[in-house]
C-alpha cells in the first residue's frame, strides 16, 4: 500500500518504564498517515504504556516521540469503562463536545455545528438515539457515539483501545468502513486489537509488542504464522524489516 502523505508520528529509540520497571526498549518507527496500524501484544506487553507515551501522558526514560499533529487534533478512545456512564448527557451532546477543543470553551454552537453533528450521527446510524442518555445505550451504540465525537473533532490522530470489545456485529460492520474512510482521508490510526479477524479486515500494518521489544510487520505475515517465527526488531529508516 502506498501512502500519499509523510508520517506525522515518529518514535525514536523509545525506552519506557512504569513504576521504575522497564516495559519497552528500543522502540522506533513511523506510524504512517493514511494507514491503520494494529497494536498487538499479550496483556502486560506494553500496549497501554506505548499509547500513554504517544499521548504525552508518560515521559520516556530515553528516546522521544515526535508528533507533528497538533494536540487538539489528537483523540484517544480508551476502553469504554473509562467513561462516566451515569453522567446526564445525551448522544447528541456527547458528539457535539468534539467541537469544543477547536471551537473554544466560551462560544456556543452555531447551526453549522449542529448540522455537522446530525450528519455524523446519520453516518454512524445513531440519529434515532440523538436524545437518548449515554447510560441507556448498548456497548456498540456508545462506541459509535464516541467515534462520532472523534469525527466532530476532525481528529488527525486516533488511538483506539480495543474498539470492538463488547460491541455487536452490526456496530463492527458500521465502524470498519468508517475507520477505513478516516484513514483514506489521511488520518493516522492506531488500534489495539486482539481479534485476528478484525485485524485482517482493518490493519495495514502491525506493531507487535513482545518481550519488551517492538516488531513491525504486515498483517499477512502475522496471519500466516500467527506470530513471527524469528522477528527482527525495527531498524533505522522508518520501514518494517519484512518477513522474518
Amino acid at each position, binding site marked *: 500500500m502506498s501512502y500519499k502523505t509523510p508520517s506525522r508520528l515518529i518514535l525514536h529509540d523509545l525506552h519506557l518504564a512504569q513504576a521504575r520497571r522497564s516495559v519497552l526498549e528500543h522502540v522506533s518507527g513511523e506510524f504512517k498517515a493514511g494507514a491503520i496500524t494494529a497494536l498487538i501484544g499479550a496483556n502486560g506487553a506494553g500496549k497501554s504504556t506505548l499509547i500513554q507515551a504517544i499521548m504525552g501522558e508518560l515521559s520516556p526514560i530515553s528516546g522521544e516521540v515526535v508528533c507533528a499533529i497538533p494536540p487538539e487534533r489528537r483523540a484517544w478512545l480508551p476502553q469504554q469503562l473509562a*467513561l462516566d456512564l451515569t453522567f446526564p448527557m445525551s448522544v447528541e451532546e456527547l458528539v457535539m463536545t468534539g467541537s469544543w477543543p477547536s471551537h473554544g470553551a466560551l462560544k456556543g454552537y452555531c447551526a453549522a455545528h449542529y448540522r455537522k453533528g446530525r450528519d455524523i450521527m446519520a453516518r454512524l446510524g445513531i440519529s434515532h438515539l440523538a*436524545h437518548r442518555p449515554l447510560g441507556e445505550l448498548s456497548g456498540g451504540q456508545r462506541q459509535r457515539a464516541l467515534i462520532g465525537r472523534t469525527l466532530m473533532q476532525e481528529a488527525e490522530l486516533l488511538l483506539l483501545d480495543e474498539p470492538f470489545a463488547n460491541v455487536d456485529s452490526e456496530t463492527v460492520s458500521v465502524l470498519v468502513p468508517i475507520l477505513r474512510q478516516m484513514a483514506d482521508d489521511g488520518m493516522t490510526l492506531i488500534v489495539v486489537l486482539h481479534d485476528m479477524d478484525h485485524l485482517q479486515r482493518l490493519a495495514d500494518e502491525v506493531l507487535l509488542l513482545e518481550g519488551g521489544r517492538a516488531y513491525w510487520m504486515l498483517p499477512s505475515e502475522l496471519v500466516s504464522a500467527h506470530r513471527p517465527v524469528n522477528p527482527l526488531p525495527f531498524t533505522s529508516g522508518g520501514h518494517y524489516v519484512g518477513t522474518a
Partner: protein
Amino acid sequence: MWELLDSWLIAPFDYGFMRRAVVAGLALSLAAPTLGVFLVLRGMSLIGDAMAHAILPGVALGFLLAGFSLPVMSISGIIFGVFVALLAGAVSKMGGQREDAAMASFFIISLAAGVMLISLGGSSVDLTHVLFGSILAINSTALLLIASISTLIVIILAVIFRALVVECLDPLFLRGQGRRNQWIHSIFLGLLVLNLTAGFQTLGTLMAVGLMMLPATSARFWSKRLEGLIGIAIVLAMLASTGGLLLSFHFDLPSGPSIILLAGTGYLLSALFGRYHSLAARLRRKTTPIETQSLT
C-alpha cells in the same frame, strides 16, 4: 383564605431581618446547588463537608482578630481553606498516600483547631453562631457580600461550564489533547471554598454544605439531564431556604436546621417518589408490561 395565606407567607417578610434572610437564602440557593450537582457528578460528594471543616480555623482566626465581622472572617476562611487543600495535596504527593486520606486527616485537625480557637477567644454563643449560622442576624453588609459571592460563582461557573462538563464526563478527552485539566479542578475547589464562606454566616460552616448537597442529590431522582438537574436543584434549594425560614419564624425554631431539615425532607420524598431510581420508580418498573415501556 387569603388572610391565612397572607399571615403565613407574606406577613413575616414585613420584618427587615426576614427580608434580608430570604434574599440571602435565595442568593445562596442559586450558587450552592449548582456546585453541589457537579460535586455529585464528580463523585466528590463528601469533599464539600471536608472543605467546610477546612475553612473553620480561618474563620475562627478572623473572629479573634476582628470580632464577628463577616468580611474579615470570610477572607481568612478562604485563605485557610485553600491553604489546607494545597497542604493535603502536597502530603499525598509526598508520601504516596491517597488524597482523600490526607484530606480527611487535615480537615478533622482543622475542625478541632477552629473550635479550640473560637472557645479561647469567645463564648459558646459565638461558637454556635460560627458552626450553625444565624441567618436572621444578617446585616446589609453581610447580605451584599453573600450576594456578590453568589453572583461571582454563577458567572465563573457559566464561563468554565463546558470545560467542567467535559472534564467530569471524560478527563482523558481533555488530557489527550495536551490540555491541563488541573486548572479546572483548582477553580472548582476555589469556588467551593468561596461558596462555603458565603454560607457560613447564614447556615454555619457545618450546615452550609447541606444547601449545596441535599438539593443536588434530590435532583438526581427527578432528571437525567444536566440542565434539568441544575434547575431542579436550584428550585428545591429556594423552596427549602424560604420554607425553612417561614417555619423557623412561625414555630420559633432555629433557622439553619429548619432550612436543612426541609431540604432533607425533600431528599427523602424524592427518594421515595422521584421519577428515576426512586422506590416508586422501581415498583413501577416491576409492574409495567414490556410493550408499554418507553425507552426514551
